[in-house]
């Protein structure tokens, strides 16, 4: 008997498989599943603002959004808090979003990225600032021109500064008391600083480090370069900017202002740079400071608040950080960075950059203005996690609970030392930072390594600055 047919059992089995597969496919096709379109605000015409996730807490973001909605009910707003370790990590994520075609309209950008964004992605705010000059007069009157100048690039203004942090020196008062050392004067010198470290070391014990610093662009070796009257890259100012200075600032404040900073030729082998590295190497050799670790200084709060560290460079952001760590206002204080050849300080600032890919540039400008209002900034910067860019926001009441006693130092750094400027951050900032960190580590990792490390740093910096972004 010929059996050319498939047996019934087999047919049933494969029929069942087929039916099952069809059922699965049908279920999958009709499933009410989540997609990217389900993310609130995605593709709904909202104005999208990307902020560094850790900068603002959810309640603050909520207040920011509601306040803007009251003012502009016709502009839906979505704040996209991007979680990142630091600014370079944040920029990487923003650039990835841009590459993926989901660019935000506005990005919160710090000094590290101001020129990169200005050169490649940003829109100059000049014509809006000119148009709404009357509305902005109060803002500029309250914000130091150095901060504004740091947000300019080749004569144009790209951001309104919202916050900044200068590298001042924090001192643990318990440690000072233990050593019998007095609080340093505002014009203390580098030698005073060294003498203080020796005093602290003498009474500190084996697990105590008088001076702790982190190897990074802000607050690493750069404050010492500034204090010694030099910089990693040759610094000059772009022409232009008078349209802004003449409109908003009195003659005394306009003096020496330009169209933003230019950082060009590397000068890692300059005598003063080598001098600064030699000084830090001598501190390492004397056990007055540790060899610098990379990172963002996250482990520093704990060791400073527990008295394992005497002094460290930090900005206004640390007042809030130390309070959260349980440090009382009376336990620490802040003073200007010590004087060497100069007492020029470094700072980093941040504000909202408007992306040229944005289709809602007018709405974005309205948000920038709203964010720069005093009532908005007061809501944003309730905790002392940063230094507000508005001078009027720094007052005794703000620092009464958290400290420090010399809170005026934060803003006075800009007034007292008018040459105080931003950390060197050309459009090639990422590579420049990598080179700086790498060779700073090498220079201080072993004795007599400074010269060779700086020579190699110079070569790599020259390559980095030649690179097109």
């Amino acid at each position, binding site marked *: *008997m*010929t*059996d*050319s047919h*498939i*047996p019934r059992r*087999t047919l049933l*089995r*494969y029929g069942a*498989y087929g039916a099952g*597969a069809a059922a699965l496919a049908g279920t999958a096709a009709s499933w009410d599943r989540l997609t990217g379109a389900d993310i609130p605000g995605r593709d709904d015409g909202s104005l999208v603002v990307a902020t560094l996730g850790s900068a603002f807490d959810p309640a603050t973001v909520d207040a920011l959004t509601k306040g803007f909605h009251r003012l502009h009910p016709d502009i839906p707003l979505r704040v996209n808090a991007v979680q990142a370790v630091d600014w*370079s990590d944040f920029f*990487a994520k923003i*650039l*990835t979003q*841009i*590459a993926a075609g989901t660019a935000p309209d506005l990005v919160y950008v710090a000094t590290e990225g101001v020129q990169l964004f200005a050169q*490649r*992605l940003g829109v100059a705010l000049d014509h809006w600032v000119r148009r709404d000059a009357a509305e902005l007069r109060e803002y500029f009157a309250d914000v130091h021109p150095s901060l504004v100048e740091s947000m300019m690039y080749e004569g144009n203004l790209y951001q309104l500064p919202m916050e900044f942090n200068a590298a001042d020196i924090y001192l643990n008062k318990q440690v000072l008391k233990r050593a019998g050392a007095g609080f340093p004067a505002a014009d203390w010198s580098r030698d005073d600083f060294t003498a203080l470290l020796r005093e602290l070391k003498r009474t500190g014990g*084996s*697990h*105590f*480090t008088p001076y*702790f610093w982190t*190897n990074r662009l802000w607050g690493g070796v750069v404050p010492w370069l500034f204090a010694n009257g030099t910089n990693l890259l040759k610094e000059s100012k772009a022409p232009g900017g008078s349209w802004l200075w003449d409109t908003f600032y009195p003659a005394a404040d306009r003096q020496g202002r330009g169209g933003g900073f230019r950082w060009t030729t590397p000068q890692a082998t300059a005598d003063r740079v080598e001098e600064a590295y030699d000084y830090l190497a001598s501190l390492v050799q004397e056990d007055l400071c*540790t*060899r*610098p*670790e*990379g*990172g963002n200084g996250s*482990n520093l709060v704990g*060791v400073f608040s527990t008295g*394992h560290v005497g002094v460290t460079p930090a900005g206004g952001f640390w007042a809030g950080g130390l309070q959260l760590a349980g440090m009382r206002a009376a336990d620490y204080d802040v003073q200007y960075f010590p004087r060497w050849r100069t007492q020029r300080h470094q700072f980093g600032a941040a504000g909202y950059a408007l992306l040229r890919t944005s289709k809602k540039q007018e709405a974005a400008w309205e948000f920038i203005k709203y964010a720069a209002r005093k009532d908005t900034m007061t809501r944003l910067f309730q905790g002392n996690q940063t230094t507000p860019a508005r001078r009027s926001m720094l007052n005794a009441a703000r620092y009464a609970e958290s400290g420090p006693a010399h809170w005026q130092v934060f803003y006075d750094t800009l007034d007292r030392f008018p040459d105080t400027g931003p950390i060197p951050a050309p459009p090639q900032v*990422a*590579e420049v*930072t*990598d080179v700086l*960190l*790498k*060779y700073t*580590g*090498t220079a*201080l*990792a*072993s004795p007599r390594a400074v010269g060779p*490390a700086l020579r190699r740093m110079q070569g790599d910096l020259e390559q980095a600055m030649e*690179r097109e*972004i």
Partner: protein
Amino acid sequence: MTNTQVPNSQAPAVRPRPGTPPAVAVRRSVRDRGTRLLAALFLAPTVVGIVVFTVVPIIVSVVLSLFHWNVIDPPRFAGGANYRTTFTDSTVLVSFRNTLLFMVLAVALQLLIALSLALALNGRMPVWLRSLFRSAFFFPLVLSAASISVVMKYLFNQDFGVVNWLIGLVGVAPVPWLTSEHAAMATVVLVYVWQQFGFSFLLFVGGLNNIPKEIHEAAALDGATGLRKHLGITLPLLSPTLLVASVVGIINALQVFEQPYVLTDGGPGDATRTVVMVIYERAFEQLDFGEASAVGVLLFALIMAVTAVQFRLSRRFVHYQ
């Protein structure tokens, strides 16, 4: 055409040979086709996953390595420029050297510790204690490498770390674990091995359990003891497991990223910078996706070459019976 039916139950589970009655052939071919279809259905999710998340990215990386692309502007064809830059970039070359050094140190140490502990636990020991040790050794593997590295960074801090405090109790001076060019790599290797050896350990435990007791008993009757028994019997019979452990270990070690990134950020200088760190820095910090892809392609080629060498050598050293 005549057909002698063979009941299903008696049908040999082999392909029909020429001359096999057609009905049986038809039925088996249907069954074979069904089995193949079913196998394909089960394999489909994995195959799709591999194609979408492995094969396509590899192809895209190779293509991208021939272009200059900074995310912001359209890609520009670069030909072999990215490869030329890579071969003349001292940081890249040092990162390859570091990665190979790391691989040798980490894998050797990992296998040595895992094998020693597996042999030690294979002896007479209460079951509960053996289970406790197994869990303890495997536990670090289920934790996030980044989290472990953050904790280790605190522990190995030169001035405030617990490690230096402990060695200080016996009079040893503080060691710059993470800030000395000589110590940093060793510290990164230690942290990595501490986390990873549990995997090799479990493989060896399984391998040892598969060695028939009779062989050891026979060897004991012949007078073989301790080390002689391990060298003559245990290791040869464990060689397939050793091969798997070393292949997986080497592939993982060549791709190390989290530990050096968190612990030392590649420093001091370039002392602990690995190839994957360079790929990350080139792509996401310096916006040079072309060069990052070129380095990635070279790393892929290196991993393939090392693995091929391992399998070639395994023919000589691995015993399956």
